[in-house]
């Protein structure tokens, strides 16, 4: 149940975005991908999904290279939560979520009772069951993002890869997405998500992968990697990691940009 890379060099059309990457993502863990704009987070996710072939090295699922997996079998194991596109046809939210069942049925088969049931369960888990019949263009950006997460749930995949699932979401919806990622982990799924908010990594990630300017900068447990030095180097700006008292008992770590001058 491991999605792993071995000496992975990724990019597209000869343009190398990152090289020599070794990552392993196991069931029941959340891995956060951090990096500045243009650092290749999306390209890495697409490579991990098998949507772009590696330029060198390989991506394996259960020890077998992704290129050797049949398309449908792979889709039942790896689910993708993209950033919501603008140009969907006006499907209902339920129809959109039900498309997560595509790999589970043959080319000529209509959605069965089980497909509809899984779609409804996914909608319920994300708390958007009430939107099922609503056209996808008539829901907010946040709700559309939640629908795409529900579609990934409906695939029943073991690994869910999310490209900035919290982008374009308000504060409340961001918290909702993070909670859902924690619930997916509790249910035994492996989640990889990229984000521009280091606080999201501190909040729920077990491990963090930092990529910058064509390569891996740091990778390790959240406690080890998420420090002021690494974050400052990653974003090219001074960043402090501070402890704040929290109603949850133990103090929590948060990131704050700093002026770089000692107080």
């Amino acid at each position, binding site marked *: 149940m491991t999605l792993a890379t071995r000496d992975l060099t990724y990019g597209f059309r000869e343009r190398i975005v990152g090289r020599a990457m070794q990552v392993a993502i196991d069931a029941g863990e959340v891995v956060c991908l951090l990096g500045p704009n243009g650092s290749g987070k999306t390209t890495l996710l697409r490579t991990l999904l098998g949507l772009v072939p590696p330029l060198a090295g390989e991506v394996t699922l259960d020890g077998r290279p992704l290129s050797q997996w049949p398309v449908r079998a792979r889709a*039942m194991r790896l689910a993708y939560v993209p950033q919501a596109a603008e*140009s969907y046809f006006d499907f209902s939210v339920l129809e959109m979520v039900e498309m997560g069942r595509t790999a589970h049925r043959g080319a000529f088969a209509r959605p069965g009772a089980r497909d509809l049931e899984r779609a409804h369960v996914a909608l319920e888990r994300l708390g958007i069951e009430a939107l099922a*019949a609503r056209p996808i263009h008539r829901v907010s950006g946040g709700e559309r993002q939640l629908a795409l997460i529900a579609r990934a749930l409906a695939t029943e995949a073991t690994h869910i890869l999310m490209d900035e699932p919290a982008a374009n979401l308000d504060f409340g919806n961001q918290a909702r997405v993070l909670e859902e990622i924690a619930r997916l982990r509790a249910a035994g799924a492996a989640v990889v998500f990229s984000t521009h908010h280091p606080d999201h990594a501190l909040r729920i990630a077990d491990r963090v992968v930092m990529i910058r300017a064509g390569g891996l900068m740091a990778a390790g447990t959240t406690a080890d990697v998420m420090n002021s030095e690494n974050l400052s180097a990653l974003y090219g700006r001074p960043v402090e990691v501070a402890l704040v008292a929290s109603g949850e008992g133990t103090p929590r770590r948060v990131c704050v940009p700093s002026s770089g001058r000692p107080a």
Partner: protein
Amino acid sequence: MASVHPARFGLVLALACALLAGLALASLAIGRFPVGFGEVARSLAAAMAGHASGLAANVDAVIREVRAPRVLAAMLVGAALSGAGAAFQSLFKNPLVSPDILGVSAGCALGAGAAVLLALPIAAVQALAFGGGLLAVALVVAIGTWVGGRDPLLTLVLTGVVVGSLFGAGIALVKLVADPYNELPAITFWLLGSFSSAGPREAAAALVPAAIGIVPLALLRWRVDALSLPEDEARSLGLAVTPLRIAVIACATLATAGSVALAGTIGWVGLVIPHAARLIAGAAFARVLPLSLVLGAAFMLVVDTVCRTAFPIEVPPGVATALIGTPAFIALLALSFRRSA
């Protein structure tokens, strides 16, 4: 305007089918030679049962040999163009394309025109129409991909216009070398879109490519929605994107080729009818396709019936669909933009 609830779609489709059946009966009765509805029903029932209708021989002939093939041809062309349009719209993730806008109709017309010029048999006319249509679609895809651009919707539409006019030039060439006394008027009239030459043999021949094109689309209808998603999403959902795209292009082009070989280039139907179906039934292809087929058949039947009866001379239906289709498309466009805004 809200689309109907999916549970009520069956009822909507049944109503559309009933409307189509009623229109077909009416169209068989209407014309220069007036025939009553009762006579139409009797003649058809007798033909199906295989015994004599007891009507005058010329009444039977008008109904069965003159009007029935033409009614079938109009329904077939309307259904085939609308089904192909619905498929092209999903395939290109673009509600603004259709066989005519993509240049496919022009490609088919050039192929068919060349075959007519060479006095080839009808199967060869259809085959060359299919080849021309495929060539046009391949050019549109290749040029559109090569040009790229920020607005793929616009790029595709403009590329279609350009490729269409290129094939239009080819058609002009065909007309130039055609014999001006016999072939040229025939080709010109046929290119305007007309069912006047549709006899029993022609209608039956057109059924073959239309069926080979539409039946696979109907079988694949549960897959086509995922094909309309951005490519990364479609592939991550486990869709075999490339083979499915090729299958949909081939089927939609074949359906278009069959109808162009029969009735020339009839524009707008393939654009406006799937739009109307989507507004009524929502975006799911499994509902848009069957409703487009029925509405397209009904629309074409009404247009052709009016064109052959309401004016002192027979107006080519291709001219009428342009007159109706243009404002209808503008209205649909405004409506759908307002819906998505």
